């Protein structure tokens, strides 16, 4: 720092610090600053500038800070560091590798320690993909290294604007992420050295691609309720609101394990540390059925749990999205799971309240809506410069206060997502997991992806709508039965009700404790669902209620037992055969 006079702390209010900036020094919105406290600097971000006063939000506990402590501005926006070596990492909201911190700090997180997000000593085997003289622009590939099972392409830094000529490119060999691998020159003749690592300001979207495409093909989660009834598209967005205890996090965990994505980014944002621990400890041991490698090899965890500093919680989602966009630039299928966006919104609310901004609904700031929309808009399916597609799919959970979906975070999220998986307390009380309520949930992708879904079955969408219609009618009949009594409903209605209950029990409900049932591959989803629809289409007639209930229970139990057997195993075939026979017998009776 060239100036002799320093900017100094003027006031401290929790993590919000007011700084008196020295005259003549320019500061930038969202610039990173450090509050010097003894021999450590506490990282902070500028969130308001007024006259010669800057309001900064400190990402650490501010106990011990004094009025008059010096503050250093860095002239850099809050950024993520991108490059090979992020897979399998566990970062905090500011991209500090927690595993490395643990070696230095023991059990507790000490403040003021920041480490490089990438291992700077590790060497990567680099292969150049361009030659000297090539014309390139931001996002185009200069070379590649192999990281785990992926080709990790080294790009022209995304922050570089305009066209460049490759002046110099490194030959094949091992380099660290900090070694220079190319020199680029722009039209004005300014040269930029390039390494494998680059920085990108987390609050700005990465837009180095040819075009954005309409998400029209499904991203398989292996959760039947989602894949069959409320599918999500590759590059689409979905939200999972639900009261506490309805199973949001469990659902997110299941999706993170079994979803058919190349990369999964888990942002644990203001939630329990214990849940992240399960992922951290279990993933290295779990095998990704698609590749045979450890699940951790395709996962990045951003972990800013509820007891970690609130301001860093706000940053954590942006960090996650930026990493997701980066991998999308590599032509990969990325899934980002954020749990929970409500905690992120609360972090906004806390800092807004400290800045004494005029509050909006439920004391959330007025800009809540635009911030939520801006985050979800960063998801998408894109065609890159080399015509390969990459996608970033985003599923955010929402924790509405009191389980009431009318609150601002849920409502503003619903406006911008393509699928809504509403969890209900009633279903979770009945242990019907996943507790997604089929009566209120929706997905716009069922229609948007019709062309690709019809490859499963020519009438796929019609079948799904039929099944949903059956569920609605079953629900109506159930409600009616509660009012007028079981004896007063007709036997035809009873059959509809029992059919709907069977669809619910064997297709919608999925047992996450069971090794077979917890994840259903597409082929099985289709086979089982078509068989189930044959049952729905079969006309049943019974002598009396007792026979009806007995027969339908038997049928349901067959379906139920079948789902616990591995696909096409003997037990599976036995129950399948039995169901076929029952259904054919019925057709004969006709």
């Amino acid at each position: 720092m060239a100036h002799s006079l320093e900017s100094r702390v003027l006031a401290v209010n929790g993590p919000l610090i007011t700084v008196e900036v020295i005259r003549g020094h320019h500061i930038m919105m969202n610039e990173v600053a450090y509050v010097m406290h003894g021999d450590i600097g506490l990282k902070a971000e500028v969130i308001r500038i007024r006259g010669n006063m800057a309001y900064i939000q400190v990402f650490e506990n501010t106990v011990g800070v004094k009025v008059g402590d010096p503050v250093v501005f860095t002239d850099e926006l809050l950024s993520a560091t991108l490059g090979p070596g992020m897979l399998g990492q566990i970062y905090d909201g500011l991209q500090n590798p927690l595993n490395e911190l643990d070696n230095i700090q023991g059990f507790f997180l000490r403040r003021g320690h920041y480490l490089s997000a990438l291992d700077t000593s590790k060497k990567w085997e680099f292969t150049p993909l361009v030659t000297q003289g090539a014309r390139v622009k931001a996002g185009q590939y200069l070379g590649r290294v192999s990281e785990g099972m992926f080709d990790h392409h080294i790009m022209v830094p995304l922050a570089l604007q305009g066209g460049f000529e490759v002046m110099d490119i490194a030959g094949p060999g091992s380099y660290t992420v900090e070694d220079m691998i190319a020199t680029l020159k722009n039209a004005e003749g300014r040269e930029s050295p390039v390494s494998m690592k680059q920085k990108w300001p987390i609050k700005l979207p990465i837009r180095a691609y040819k075009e954005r495409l309409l998400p029209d093909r499904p991203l398989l989660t292996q959760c039947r309720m989602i894949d069959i009834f409320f599918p999500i598209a590759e590059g689409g967005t979905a939200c999972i609101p639900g009261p506490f205890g309805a199973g949001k996090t469990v659902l997110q965990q299941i999706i993170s394990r079994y979803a058919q994505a190349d990369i999964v980014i888990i942002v644990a944002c203001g939630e329990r540390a214990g849940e992240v621990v399960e992922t951290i400890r279990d993933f290295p041991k779990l095998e990704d059925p698609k590749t045979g490698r450890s699940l951790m090899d395709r996962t990045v965890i951003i972990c800013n749990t509820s007891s970690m500093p609130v301001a860093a919680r706000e940053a954590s989602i942006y960090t996650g999205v930026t990493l997701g966009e980066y991998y999308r630039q590599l032509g990969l299928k990325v899934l980002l799971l954020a749990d929970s966006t409500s905690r992120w919104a609360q972090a906004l609310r806390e800092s807004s309240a400290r800045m004494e901004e005029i509050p909006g609904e439920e004391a959330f700031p007025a800009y809540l809506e635009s911030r939520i929309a801006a985050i979800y808009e960063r998801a998408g399916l894109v065609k890159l410069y080399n015509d390969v597609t990459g996608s970033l799919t985003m599923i955010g959970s929402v924790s509405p206060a009191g389980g009431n979906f009318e609150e601002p975070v849920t409502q503003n999220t619903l406006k911008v997502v393509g699928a809504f998986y509403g969890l209900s307390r009633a279903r979770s009380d009945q242990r019907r997991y996943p507790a997604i309520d089929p009566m209120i949930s929706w997905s716009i992708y069922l229609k948007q992806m019709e062309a690709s879904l019809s490859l499963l079955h020519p009438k796929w969408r019609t079948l799904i709508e039929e099944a949903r219609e059956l569920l609605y009618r079953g629900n109506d009949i159930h409600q009616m039965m509660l009012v007028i009594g079981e004896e007063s409903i007709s036997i035809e209605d009873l059959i509809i009700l029992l059919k709907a209950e069977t669809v619910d029990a064997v297709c919608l409900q999925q047992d996450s404790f069971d090794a077979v049932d917890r994840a259903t591959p597409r082929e099985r989803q289709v086979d089982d669902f078509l068989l189930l629809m044959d049952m729905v289409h079969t006309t049943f007639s019974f002598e009396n209620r007792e026979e009806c209930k007995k027969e339908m229970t038997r049928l349901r139990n067959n379906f139920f037992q079948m789902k616990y057997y591995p696909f096409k195993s003997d037990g599976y075939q036995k129950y399948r055969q039995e169901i076929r026979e029952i259904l054919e017998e019925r057709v004969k009776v006709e």
Partner: protein
Amino acid sequence: MIVEYTQITSIQGDIIAVEAKDIRYGELAAVRSRLRTSLAQVIRLRGNEVLLQVFAGAKGISTGDRVRFLGHPMQVTYGDAMLGRVFNGSGLPLDAGPDLRSYPRHEVGGPSVNPVKRIIPRGFIETRVPMIDVFNPLVESQKLPIFAAAGEPYNELLTRVGIRANADVVILGGIGLKHDEYLKFRHAFEEAGVLPRTVMFIHTASDPVVERLLVPDMSLALAEQFGVSGKRVLVLLSDMTAFADAMKEVAISMDQVPSNLGYPGSLYSDLAARYEKAVDFEGAGSITILAVTTMPGDDVTHPVPDNTGYITEGQFYLKNGVVEPFGSLSRLKQLVVGSVTREDHGYIMNSMIRLFARSREVEQKLAMGFEKTEDDERFLKYGRLFYDRFMDLKVDIGLNSALDLGWKTLAECFNPDEVGIKQSMIDGYWPGQGRSEFGD
């Protein structure tokens, strides 16, 4: 260089402002008034104006009183000498025991544990309350609230778990306790002979409100020290709603914009900072938290229970003197159910609740005056048995006996194909095999 400041410029609620220089955020101060000397903590700095929260309350403080800054934040004494003792929120002894001022002290409200230093909890804590053990087992290092309306026997339940639990150290934090309740706790612990492994931080309803804020922090900071040194610690807190109310009071006196029913917008983070102290340390001890959260108006959507529910790993609902099966949840149960406990545990747990939900539905239907079917009869019978054998708080049986009783109860009311349990489990556990073969 101890300086005393006498420029108290404003007093609002229990917050006082004083003109002072070179003061650290979060630092403690002693405020000496005509009646007493009280501790206070710096909660905001604005130029030379320092805002202090006075733990003993601002009553009787005059603008001319002296404030002396201590140069360090709140601390708790740590050592085995703490065991068997009772302290107030500020850490001063309430019993006749010796002064512990010479022992090492540690800052309260310290940094959070690095998530990668935590391990997945694996310890099942048997309480011999079947509604807990069978349906929502308590796991070591879990944080669980007991949601209850005023008047429910939550402190009795807390006492029962505290006495039976297999922990090395039990720390009881009483927040806004009635004095009688405190005496009952103390008596019960003494009688059961567990007082020597217990530390109590007691704030009673008649003590100054701000001191309430300290109780969870003191209890948990001490728990952390025991935990790091390898002890398995159980922290019991009652009642966290009183704690939240104290935060509300402070926030309002600070002119903060309230978010919901007057509570500060940071309620979630503030509660989480405490509950998240529950941990299983890699290679050391653990901290398990069981905390009472009373629900004003028996309303679970009230901001305190609501935010708590999102933070904790489940909750026990205490209603009409029993632990309610619906809504009660132990999120960590899948870590022990069927792996640490018996293989059939998970199936019994889910099926029995599912069927009990049906029996509640039948009850409602009948209450509306509908005819009783044969089916209804069976569900009613099941509901009655379920209440007597499992829900009643007087029931005192171990987990495996409770599971056996579960199979027996199912078999008394249903056929195997009606309970939705996979065949291999039915084959292994259904009493009186072959009563109803598959596909008959």
